[in-house]
């Protein structure tokens, strides 16, 4: 590395020195914060990714020290390498803000507005992007592109309607597995992610396409509709796995593990890819060594209603004040149908259905007696 020349690049008036050959996006990530352009298709762990979604467009106001002319068009920062003395404008440029708004509109042209149903909601890159850069209204008068649902195996759910054609999952399968079984069929408006003639994706590492997917096109079938992301609590954990590093993030609701994913860094990229056994089959807390709760950004919806460092009322103090033992007047679990202790949603493989929630006869009978007059 010592013989590669260092280039000075200024992004939004912040200067950083990076080795030659670094892309503008990676240089901006070294600075961090708002200066970093968003990326929907670029994934630093995957070779050749990037250059497709155009959300990372930036303005180069000075090409380099030797050739100070600005670049005439906005460039994709994930594919453009830095030059010495280059000056880049990201959020300080009106053109970039406007172009990004246009790109978000293009990405949303065929993206259905089904966030209330989608399992990715709450940790979706496109949701964040359109919240920050998009417009509230759609200007499209034509029907959105739709596809027939396709079954790609017992663990992964494909929603082609939500796909934004970032190719991340294709690169993941190409670079992580021996044989890629899915890819992009057709061209242009009709292009779709598919296995060629209804094959199931069954490679041991294919589950990682769920993590790399920036939208809800590829989701975990074992987690499907079980919980909303913001009702589960992330915990870092590891296990001694013979095939992968075993370093994962567990998503808890109470004592139950609802989902296992890779650990994502602040750019939304997994730190280490994990195997299918860890992801889909180890859904008990006893399978894992828990390291502690994941640090979640305070502004993220995932941190909603998760109280850290909450101080419980002192039992002794209550007794002193009221002069007697506090009496529990209603144990919610004797009435509530939700989170019933005998139903373990996390142990059902695939989404739960109406027959998984058979009424609790005892509870119902008691309730009818009491509430009958209502």
């Amino acid at each position, binding site marked *: 590395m010592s013989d590669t020349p260092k280039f000075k690049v200024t992004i939004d008036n912040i200067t950083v020195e990076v080795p030659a050959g670094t892309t503008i996006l990676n240089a901006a990530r070294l600075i961090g914060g708002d200066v970093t352009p968003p990326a929907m298709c670029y994934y630093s762990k995957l070779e050749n990714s990037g250059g497709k979604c155009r959300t990372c467009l930036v303005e180069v106001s000075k090409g380099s020290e030797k050739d100070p002319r600005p670049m005439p068009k906005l460039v994709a920062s994930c594919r453009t390498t830095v030059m010495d003395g280059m000056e880049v404008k990201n959020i300080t440029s009106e053109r970039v803000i406007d172009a990004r708004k246009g790109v978000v509109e293009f990405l949303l042209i065929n993206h259905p507005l*089904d*966030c*209330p*149903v989608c399992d990715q*909601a709450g940790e979706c890159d496109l949701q964040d992007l359109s919240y920050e850069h998009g417009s509230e209204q759609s200007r499209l008068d034509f029907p959105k592109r739709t596809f027939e649902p396709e079954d790609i195996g017992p663990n992964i759910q494909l929603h082609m309607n939500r796909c934004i054609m970032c190719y991340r999952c294709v690169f993941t399968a190409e670079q992580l597995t021996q044989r890629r079984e899915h890819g992009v069929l057709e061209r242009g408006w009709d292009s779709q992610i598919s296995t060629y003639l209804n094959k199931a994706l069954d490679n041991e590492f294919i589950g990682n396409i769920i993590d790399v997917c920036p939208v809800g096109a590829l989701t975990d079938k074992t987690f*499907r*509709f*079980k*919980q*909303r992301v*913001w*009702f589960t609590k992330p915990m870092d954990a590891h296990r001694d796995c013979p095939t992968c590093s075993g370093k994962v993030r567990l998503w808890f609701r109470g004592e139950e593990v609802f989902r296992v994913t890779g650990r994502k860094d602040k750019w939304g990229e997994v730190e280490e890819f994990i195997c299918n056994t860890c992801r889909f089959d180890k859904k008990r807390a006893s399978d894992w060594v828990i390291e502690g709760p994941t640090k979640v950004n305070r502004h993220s*919806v995932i941190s*909603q*209603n998760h109280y850290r460092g909450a101080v419980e009322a002192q039992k002794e103090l209550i007794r002193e004040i009221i002069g007697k033992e506090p009496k529990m*007047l*209603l144990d*919610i679990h*004797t*009435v*509530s*149908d*939700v*989170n019933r202790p005998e139903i373990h*949603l996390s142990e059902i493989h695939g*989404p*739960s*259905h*109406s027959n*998984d*929630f058979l009424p609790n006869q005892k509870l119902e009978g*008691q*309730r009818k007696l*009491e*509430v009958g007059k*209502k």
Partner: protein
Amino acid sequence: MQHLTNRAILINRNPMTLAERLYVPAIAKGLKVTVSHIFKKKATVSYPEEKRPFAPVFRGLHVLNRDEEGRERCTACGLCAVACPAEAITMEAAERKPEEAHLYREEKYAAKYEINMLRCIFCGFCEEACPKDAIYLSETVMPSNYSRRSMIYKKDDLLIPHPKKQEDNK
């Protein structure tokens, strides 16, 4: 004595004069207030014969809405529960089976939906958060009850009647 604020009112604690000790002027003053109220408009209404109109922003008992075909609108997206400042709403979602398509509007629906009316503060945030027009706060005053158990409202208690079945009954 030093006052913390300048709003303190000093009370006259001098012994009462003879006129004051007679109490007659004070009693007359009090009676004047009482009698004047006889001629004023009554502040109460004789409920339940007479009912006050609701304010247009009144927020009462919750209802879960159905669409024109009687399918449940709620998709258990959880936005009402996360918006709820009292944490009164809980739910569990399930996937719709093909034969249940006439019951639920979307692929995913709320298999269980509960509002703990003991916790609810009727702020209407759930109504505001709902992206599917599924939950509304109606113009019905929340009925009181003798037991705490019956204050846990389940989906059957909240759902509005099926529009088609209701027509059949008529």
